[in-house]
């Protein structure tokens, strides 16, 4: 037996390699760098590697090949768009993470212990959050371009493990934060097991772990259909868990609430892009010809997800939990794009992911600003009268809410229109009707928050809007501008997506 050396296309892998390299440098800084300058150097390395990765991505944007890494990574237009989206979202989120006020001083210290008090007195900082972010980003970059199931699984673990840790880093209410991290980890591990189980079945079905091989077996139609069905079902469970689709959503409200807000924003936006990227690829490429096996189930899940997310969000009293349920509803809308299984469905999904991800980071950025002496205030009742205290911040948040609700002149509207029309075009009338109805329900709770902020008087309980740091300001300004511009002049981005989004098979 001879051993063939793997042939790698380094240029196409460069974005991922750069991010991973940055993460490793971050680990070294953590080990050997002087404590005083650690925060600054970590921030610099993180931002620099994200920017460099983006530049590397731009350089190879027009290439496409199945052989970026021996058939395990497919490099194509859709992959470039998704990776670019993830990098932009990551960069904006890092600006929020840089505001260390939200993070515990020493993650390893037991809550309430003398060690914790000491670390607070010393004003330590969790600079390890930066390399963790970069590891997660690298996993996210790999996730939507994986073209075999093993790589898919590795990418899933690579993006998940750092996120489990990051969810537990909150400075205040640490027990809740750690509980949410544990919950996320246990349920995440469970869903990973499901995914792996599905991989095994699909291997049994097609004797292959590559998407191309599975597609060929489905087209050939010679395999055992029970294995195929079980495989698709289990893999779907693993992936739908990551996007928080009903009934695999139970973790998301708790984790959204418990995690430090900057991390929640990053997780909500970037994970969704990565996971939907992977879902799109696997359903559009590997399972496309088994459409009739999975479509009815996915339609049902999409409808239940939209309606459930919208209805339950109405009863929420916490802004982060409300956004969590709203993100569940949006996962339902995004599934409409998967179900469309057409070029316009793919374009619409990518546009929606970009628009939604950007608005999500911005909205969580605003949430970090509303605080009292004990940290962030997420109880919605205490947000009342925010419009009086800080008209600008409240207006920006209201604008993001209107974008989530899909009101015209925001990016959300264009996204909603394109994704529903793509779904309807391929005959999913039920999706269209459910989507419109749940949008109407969703409008109710978004507007309730606007009423609370603008039409109620402030309660005097020390809640205030802090003056944001320059980096946080940048994130909020950039995200709100993008949301507005995409609402008024979406044509350039839509054209760009339309001309370059495709999956290589």
């Amino acid at each position, binding site marked *: 037996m001879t051993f063939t050396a793997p042939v790698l296309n380094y240029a196409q892998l460069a974005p991922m390699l750069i991010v991973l390299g940055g993460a490793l440098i971050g680990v070294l800084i953590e080990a050997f760098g002087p404590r005083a300058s650690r925060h600054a150097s970590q921030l610099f390395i993180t931002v620099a590697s994200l920017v460099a990765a983006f530049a590397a991505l731009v350089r190879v944007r027009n290439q496409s090949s199945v052989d970026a890494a021996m058939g395990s990574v497919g490099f194509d237009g859709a992959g470039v768009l998704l990776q670019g989206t993830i990098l932009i979202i990551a960069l904006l989120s890092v600006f929020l993470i840089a505001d260390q006020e939200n993070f515990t001083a020493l993650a390893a210290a037991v809550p309430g212990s003398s060690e914790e008090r000491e670390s607070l007195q010393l004003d330590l900082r969790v600079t390890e959050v930066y390399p963790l972010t970069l590891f997660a980003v690298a996993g996210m970059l790999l996730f939507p371009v994986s073209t075999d199931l093993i790589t898919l699984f590795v990418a899933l673990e690579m993006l998940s493990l750092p996120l489990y840790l990051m969810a537990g880093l909150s400075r205040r209410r640490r027990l809740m934060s750690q509980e949410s991290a544990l919950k996320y980890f246990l349920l995440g591990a469970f869903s990973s097991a499901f995914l792996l189980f599905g991989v095994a079945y699909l291997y049994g079905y097609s004797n292959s772990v590559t998407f191309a091989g599975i597609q060929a077996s489905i087209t050939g139609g010679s395999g055992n259909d029970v294995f195929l069905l079980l495989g698709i079902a289990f893999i779907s469970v693993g992936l739908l868990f990551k996007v928080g689709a009903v009934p695999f959503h139970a973790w998301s409200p708790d984790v959204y609430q418990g995690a430090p807000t900057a991390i929640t924003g990053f997780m909500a936006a970037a994970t969704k892009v990565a996971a939907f990227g992977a879902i799109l690829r696997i359903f559009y490429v590997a399972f496309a010809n088994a459409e009739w096996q999975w479509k009815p189930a996915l339609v049902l899940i999409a409808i239940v997800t939209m309606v459930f997310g919208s209805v339950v969000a109405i009863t929420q009293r916490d802004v982060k939990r409300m956004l969590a349920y709203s993100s569940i509803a949006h996962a339902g809308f995004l599934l409409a794009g998967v179900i469309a299984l057409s070029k316009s469905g793919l374009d619409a999904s990518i546009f929606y992911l970009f628009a939604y991800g950007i608005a999500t980071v911005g909205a969580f950025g605003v949430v970090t600003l509303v605080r009292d002496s004990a940290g962030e205030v997420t109880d919605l009742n205490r947000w009342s009268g925010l419009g*009086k205290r800080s008209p600008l911040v409240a207006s920006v948040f209201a604008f993001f809410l209107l974008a989530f609700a899909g*009101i015209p002149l925001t990016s959300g509207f264009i996204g909603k229109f394109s994704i529903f*029309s793509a779904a*309807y*075009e391929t005959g999913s009338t039920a999706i269209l009707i459910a989507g419109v109805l749940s949008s109407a329900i969703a*409008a109710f709770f978004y507007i309730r928050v606007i009423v609370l902020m603008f039409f*109620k008087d402030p309660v005097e309980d020390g809640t205030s809007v802090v003056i944001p740091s320059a980096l946080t300001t940048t994130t909020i300004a950039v995200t709100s501008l993008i949301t507005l511009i995409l609402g008024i002049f979406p044509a350039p981005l839509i*054209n760009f997506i339309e001309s370059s989004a495709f999956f290589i098979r």
Partner: protein
Amino acid sequence: MNALTSMMLLPLLGSLLVAVIPSDQTLRIKQAALGTTLLVAISGVMAWFKFDSANTSFQFVQIAQWIPSFGINYAVGVDGLALVLILMSVLLAPVVVLAGWNESEGGRWSAKVFYILILVLETMMIGVFAATDVFLFYVFFEAMLIPVYFLIGGYGSGERAAAAVKFLLYSLFGGLLMLASIIGLYVISGTHGGHTFDIGQLSELHKFMSPTTQNLLFLGFFIAFAIKAPVWPLHTWLPDAAAAATPGTSVLLLGVLDKVGTFGMIRFCLTLFPDASKTFTPVILVFAVISILYGAFLAIGARDIKRLIAYTSISHFGFITMGIFAMTTQGHSGATLYMFNHGFSTAALFLVAGWMISRRGSSTIADFGGLQRVTPVMAWSFFIAGMSSLALPGLSSFVSEFLVLVGTYTRYPVAAVIATFGIVLAALYILIPVQKALHGPTTPGNENLPDLNLREKIAIAPVIAVIVALGFYPAPLLNVINPASAHVLEVQGFTDPVPSESAGK
């Protein structure tokens, strides 16, 4: 530059001008807003004179690509119908600004925000009537809810927040149903000659639709417009909103925004879905007749003067809807003229009622009495507006109400006969408050009310002038409206019933 585009840009520039004036210079802000609206009114009148009423195609057309991938254009143009409504809107805007000179002062926010909202709203009001691209229309249709929402909730009185939310939720619900229909149209257009939103091309599409599809799409549009107009039983938001809003906002809400509903019925329901319109005509006529009578009965029972005007409007919108769905040229001309006249008579009623309320400090009809002696100018203004509202011959509404009834009678005599009772009831609901509030002995609390000041007189004079002038000589408007109405009906093959010669034999 295109007349319509420049008319839309002017208020937008005005709002920017207002935005840069410091908040404490309230007078400057008001002057800037008044100046802008006057300029827009002048350009509206100029467009009126440039308009060629013999030409039934869209005029002042401008088409620019907006989102080419979806076939969406920035496309504006007016026929006689749209022009009349735009003229009404731009004439009412300066009246509203001048009449409500101090309206912004009791608000939650500064006068600056008030006038920015008014000016932005004016842009959208022009846009919604001028749009000849269904998508563009929808964008204006939905986006204009937001400024109105803040105008009601921020500057109104009483239960303003609740009323604003009710208004917004009702409208959003209707809007989302319409969005579903628009997506349906978009998808169907894609399979018949390429995606488009052009109203002209879409009006051919009904030939390819199954009756079920056409009926469903029709309902999506119609329900949205019936909420907007409002037609019984979707009217319940209107009295609350009108009672809570400032008089000026109410004028814009009832006078202009609600017309978008009846305008949309002609422009979209009838033009895009002629067969479905015929199918639903009996049902809609029943609703319209119920609106006429129900609104009138509620008005008779109303104790609050603003609610009274809102209820009378429900009755009037019943007439307009009936005229539209009678599908005769007389009915259509009457309905269009009615929209214009209702704008002015409602404006007069609301503005004078607003002055009465602010002077007396109460909106209960029973609190007024004998105003004729104390404040003759105010009382006479209210009287004339009231007489116009009950369609007294010689005042503008008479002509339109007469045309609607005649136009309906030729095809649906029963509906017309029942609707005629609305006129009798109108006499009651107007004469009762006129008698209570204006005539008889001056009741305690009313002795020292000041009469209208110069500003208020200047504001109301043009409105009264229009009411009287059009009552005697409606020809200038009808000359523009008639060809447009005939054209709308002719294009989709609606014909007037031929008078039967054998009827008398």
